[in-house]
């Protein structure tokens, strides 16, 4: 007591946090969450969403945000104010969570480049999911920095385009949300 959890006017450093939000999968719920972030000037680095419990119509939304501790607390409390939101957990604050992202990476090329592409893909455990005479599509899964690194290595070898799912995360251990 008597020690505020943060100190208002001091320059707080921003931190990157992963939040997981359990919501009722009803129409407009994603717009509510996203609208809250834009209306209050919060930042979204990455967002993934999908229904996870079909029988109960519940979805999990994973949001990566960058904010000061004060704003992170506000984000959590404001999210909890939304009527269809069950719970919000700050996975980063609660301990090391498992974080994964999937990317599909299209690379075109011939000759030595093509061989090098395959070698690197193997090293990164990226799977070939489509191939033609002069192109590959790789599927890579991992932490965002691994995906990032793979993409940057593909750049000089004929990178055509990339799609990424954004980050999804779950806590370690036996406890669920």
């Amino acid at each position, binding site marked *: 007591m008597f020690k*505020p959890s943060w*100190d208002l*006017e001091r320059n707080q450093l921003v931190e990157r946090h992963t939040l997981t939000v359990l919501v009722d999968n009803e129409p*407009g719920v994603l717009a509510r969450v996203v609208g*809250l972030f834009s209306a209050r000037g919060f930042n979204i680095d990455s967002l993934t969403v999908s229904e996870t419990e079909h029988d109960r119509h519940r979805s999990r939304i994973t949001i990566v945000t960058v904010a000061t501790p004060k704003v992170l607390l506000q984000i959590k*409390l404001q999210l*909890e104010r*939304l*009527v269809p939101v069950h719970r919000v957990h700050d996975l980063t604050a609660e301990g090391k969570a498992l974080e994964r992202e999937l990317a599909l990476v299209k690379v075109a090329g011939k000759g030595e480049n093509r061989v090098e592409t395959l070698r690197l893909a193997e090293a990164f455990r990226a799977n070939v999911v489509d191939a033609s005479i002069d192109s590959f599509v790789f599927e890579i899964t991992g932490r965002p920095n691994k995906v990032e690194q793979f993409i940057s290595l593909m750049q000089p070898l004929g990178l055509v385009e990339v799609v990424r799912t954004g980050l999804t995360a779950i806590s370690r251990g036996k406890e669920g949300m």
Partner: protein
Amino acid sequence: MAQQMTGAEMVIQALVDQDVEHIFGYPGGAVLPIYDAIFQQDKVEHILVRHEQGATHMAEGYARSTGKCGVVLVTSGPGATNAVTGLADALLDSIPMVCITGQVPTPLIGSDAFQECDTVGITRNCTKHNYLVKSVEDLPRVLHEAFYVATSGRPGPVVIDIPKDVQFALGSYAKPNNGSHPTYKPQTEGDLEAIKMAVDLMLKAEKPILYTGGGVINSGPEASVELREIAELTGFPVTSTLMGLGAFPASSDQWLGMLGMHGTYEANMAMHDCDLMICVGARFDDRITGRIDGFSPNSKKIHIDIDPSSINKNIAVDLPIVGDCGFVLEEMVRIWRSRTNQPRTEALSGWWKQIGEWRDVKSLQYAKSEKVIKPQYAIERLYELTKERDVYITTEVGQHQMWAAQHFHFNEPNRWMTSGGLGTMGYGLPAAVGVQAAHRDALVIDIAGEASVQMTMQEMSTAVQYGLPIKVFILNNERMGMVRQWQELLHGGRYSSSYSESLPDFVKMAEAFGAHGIRCEDPAELDDKILEMINSDKPVLFDCCVTKDENCLPMIPSGKAHHEMILPDTADIGNIIDEKGKVLV
């Protein structure tokens, strides 16, 4: 057994089951089935407005003066968009409201149909929650849930968008359940340990202050009783935000007046110098805090609020208590009693002496005049001549609103209706209609400015139609007074568009509406004319011609802290606000 009925009939049945007696609305193509259902019953009285914004402010006035939920019924498209200002207003001031909007039939949604708009999209960020009901099976649940969400926890507006085909469809109606929700669970009971800690701090404080807000009023009349009790037990001074006026009686010796930008010197200085601040149902709004890094630098702060997100949002507090003010205050009284039965008169005597010195500054004084009516004088006289009556006050937004807050005094909750958070000009006249609809025999006065009142003037016609004798007391200075004041303070006296030209003749306007018009230009005639207004059984437009360029003081200039107030005798006010303050609002 569940009753079979149409969606439109369900709407009416749900209103009846939710004890709604009055609704404010305007018909249109997409709500015709509901209007047909209204026509065939006599349990719910519909009040036809002249513009949907008027309906929302009437519902707000109704809700604030009764503690019940205000209900609005409007059509799709422009009906819904016109209601948006009132929804945003109710959200910022935490007013319980259910707004039912018609929508084009479900097969036409998304086709840019006539009078179609994305109502739930548009109102998502200006409601506590909203619903688009696509199936009549969902309608009874949604109707009841909307009332529960609007009125529980921190109250707010809820929109129910009902497509026309759903209004026609047959379905089975269910009565409301006991009021619970799978995900929405407001925390009303404050943590007992935290309340005990709060009492410990209060027992030790030497320079305490109770800073109360609209939450005390929203909590219900019991919370005001508990607030008076804790103030009496402790002997602490009490101040309040604009929204909280009336929860604590202005007639009490412990009352310091309103705090904040146009609050009294004693209230703001006490906030600045206190060693313990007990914030009850207020949210450290920027009108209250002034410059944040200069806000009450040496105090421990206790914050009681039903909304966890209000805590630590603007100001870091030492002891948060999430819960309903009424509950927490009741526990606080009980625990205080178990610790002591003595007010700490001696320990607080130095503090009260200091407060006495601040009071002696007389920050609300103004230069009197026998030639022209001073706006402050007009409010003082209005108060003196109505204080023995059953009076409710609404206001518009601007200088007159602040003068009303300063010079009209409230001793009971739910008597003061004003747009605090959103600052909606045009709020007061329709709000007065809503108050009068709930309290037919009371004296309901809208203290107005000539600029604000023109924004919703058409609702005079509603007042006349329903025999609601509201009194609109216009402080007419032919200026948007607060804009003019800020231009004097911040923009070198360049009065860009802040004067009212081509003003209507309000007396003739009153007559045109079938109301009663009064004009007063002479302070000597003011009392008689106010009495004429009070004694009229018609709605009245009172054109009170006041000093044109009066400033509303005292004032915490933007970018300054509580102890840096401009007082009525401060010189050279055009040079006080610095560059940093200029960008603030």
